[in-house]
């Protein structure tokens, strides 16, 4: 039984792992020369409710990638405005670690291979076309192409291509596979009727920052610098993808996190203004390269799906990550990916598809984000364990806990311990 995963970001890697664990032959296609996509410039794990979600995933038997980010963390248990107990993985180490892990599991990885179209028979996808014209068939497909870019979207809904890590001009644009298969994409809004949202952080080269800043970053993982009063721009928070970081503190201060590079917690910031801040006089962007001008645009390509991650209207296409909803973050991608990968095999075998119970944070967010995307106001919100609307909900419902034993007990009681490790074929 063969599963094709389209897109090698966090959710694609996660889907590949659970599909493999369930016993499928797994082939993954990634358009660039690196796995993890935006995960190569991310790094924040386990902050706020993500801690709970990570531990739930471990208990469910899909902790592989969480363990990898834990092992590759530069800082553990740090706090920054609005966020507690964050772990920061090293973006300069994580990608090869994940690639090695997938290869060791015997997952076939095809790099620099872009999927551009599908061949359909009734409501089934029979095969996919690669950009060089090759045609490949499989039993089940998982789309994890994300919702970021390509250039045309970044131009129409943002400030143009800012040369982000996805490198569309070099590797070609993301193509919405579900749309190619005849399913209209849903779109997120950042304000009423303004589509898309702009990625929420940049990376500065650490070597370009002052010694003091670097020292503090290395020691504590966080640096907070004051923005000159005349440059504080609260309006810009509206544009952001990451509503958990769209706080007043983030407009009045420059917040840097140490993820190997210095992660600048703002969507973009004119270089000239940035260099007025003490310690950043020589600052230089390394992601996006044109971080002084803009950042990538996201959420223009969400597939309608069920809570089991199956795309509505197609019999054998699953989706995960941003493709599956207005999610923010690696943890959120990993969870949805794991469920999509596992259910791909259940779907093939004709078994009932797994739906994670709403008594778990991971189950609730998948169902909640799905409910919300069908309402107008729901499309202006983002869904993450790390903050904003959903973290409040987690706390209200008592889903947020740091007690690992309690989480294990809960999963055990639901009879779901290690469900993602179960071999189905």
């Amino acid at each position, binding site marked *: 039984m063969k599963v094709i995963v389209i897109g090698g970001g966090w959710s694609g890697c996660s889907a590949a792992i659970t599909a493999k664990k369930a016993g499928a032959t797994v082939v993954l296609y990634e358009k660039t020369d690196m796995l993890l996509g935006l995960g190569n410039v991310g790094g924040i794990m386990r902050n706020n409710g993500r801690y709970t979600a990570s531990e739930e995933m471990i208990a469910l038997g899909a902790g592989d990638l969480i363990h990898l980010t834990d092992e590759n963390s530069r800082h553990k248990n740090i706090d920054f405005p609005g966020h507690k107990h964050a772990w920061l993985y090293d973006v300069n180490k994580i990608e090869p670690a994940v690639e090695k892990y997938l290869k060791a599991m015997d997952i076939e990885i095809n790099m620099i291979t872009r999927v*551009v*179209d599908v*061949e359909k028979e009734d409501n089934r996808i*029979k*095969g996919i*076309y690669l*950009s060089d*014209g090759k*045609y490949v068939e499989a039993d089940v497909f998982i789309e994890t192409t994300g919702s970021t*870019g*390509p*250039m*045309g*979207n970044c*131009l*129409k809904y943002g400030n*143009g*291509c800012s040369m982000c890590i996805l490198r*569309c*001009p070099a590797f*070609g*644009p*993301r*193509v*919405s596979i579900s*749309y*190619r298969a005849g399913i209209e*994409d849903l*779109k997120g809004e950042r304000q009423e009727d303004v589509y898309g949202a702009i990625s929420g952080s940049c990376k500065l080269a650490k070597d370009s920052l002052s010694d003091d800043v670097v020292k503090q970053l290395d020691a504590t993982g966080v640096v907070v610098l004051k923005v000159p009063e005349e440059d504080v721009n609260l309006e810009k928070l509206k544009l952001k993808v990451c509503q958990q970081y769209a706080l007043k503190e983030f407009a009045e201060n420059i917040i840097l996190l140490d993820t190997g590079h210095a992660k600048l917690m703002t969507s973009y910031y004119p270089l000239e203004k940035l260099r007025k801040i003490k310690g950043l006089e020589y600052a230089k962007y390394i992601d996006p390269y044109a971080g002084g001008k803009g950042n990538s645009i996201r959420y*223009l*390509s969400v597939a309608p799906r069920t809570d089991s991650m199956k795309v509505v209207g197609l019999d054998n296409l699953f989706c995960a990550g941003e493709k599956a909803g207005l999610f923010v973050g690696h943890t959120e991608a990993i969870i949805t990916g794991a469920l999509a990968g596992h259910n791909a095999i259940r779907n093939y075998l004709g078994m009932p598809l797994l739906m994670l119970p709403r008594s778990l944070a991971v189950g609730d967010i998948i169902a909640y984000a799905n409910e919300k995307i069908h309402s107008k106001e729901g499309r202006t919100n983002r869904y993450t364990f790390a903050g904003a609307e959903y973290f409040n909900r987690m706390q209200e419902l008592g889903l947020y806990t740091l007690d690992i034993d309690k989480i294990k007990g809960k999963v055990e009681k639901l009879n779901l311990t290690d469900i993602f490790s179960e071999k189905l074929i």
Partner: protein
Amino acid sequence: MALRVKFLRNHRSLVYRACPCHLAETGDCILCSQLGGKNFCDCSNWNGVCIYQEYASNNYKAKESRKYYYCKVVEKNKFEDNIIIFTLEASDKLVSELVQAGSYVFVRRPDTDTRFDTPISIMDTDTRNNTITIAIELKGTKTKALDVLKQGEELLVKAPFWNGILGLKNINTIKNSKCIIVARGIGQAPMIPPLKHLHANNNEVTVVLDNSPYKNSFVNEYLEKYASKVIMVNTIVRGRITDEFNNILKNLISNNDFSLVHCDAADVLNYELMKAVEEIDKNIKYSCCNNAKMCCGEGICGCCTRKNNDRKLRRLCKMQTEPKYVLEGRRIF
């Protein structure tokens, strides 16, 4: 293998040099979804440049369209009363833009108006002496008007255009292989650039030649230089491939490992040959000349548009695709 049909919309990069054109201004771009009336990217025709970005950088305007050039007739030869072969002097830039297989130009006599523009394939280019060679079959008013010109006089050339071959990708990607080129009548002229290109990429080219309706061939010197073997045969009678040709084809293909068949002929032969090759070996790539009637070459006049049974509009002057997508499912009334 029938599945391949779906992937036929793979347009090639050379089209891009003129992007964005007027079609972008009216939301009719055939490549970019953002410029084709949608408000999101569905970029399955990517060729290395974001046309929408180019359009924005150009202040939301189309690029300048093709220009007319006066080109001196350096040489004029007549072949069997009905074909004239012009060698024209052109600028270094223009010649270099017409080197690729599939290049073509519009020509007319300077004292006629734009209605006389007639699309003619490039037969040969000479980048040393900066000349282009074209062969024109005298058919109707437009072509006959050109016969008046003498050596030393000037011709008006609108150029460059590149979409003279369907399935161009197949020609451009093939290396160190064996290929067959089939050409009939005036089709021997557009055969030369692909022949030269395939030869340059270390391919062994067998040419199957049908001179009819002419007695002889006007491309012998090229065949001697670039073809490894030439087979003369009557290819088609009353819209059907002759048994003789079919047998030659079967023999060639069963005894050799051919990767590509290219055809320069009327669409009936282009189509029949495509089917015949497909029947013998589905893995052989196929390309043929683009025979669409054209007036402007820039997607505006609508002369080259075609709808097949799938009801999808094809602007053949611009659309680079596999022959099958054009030739199959044609409507007959």
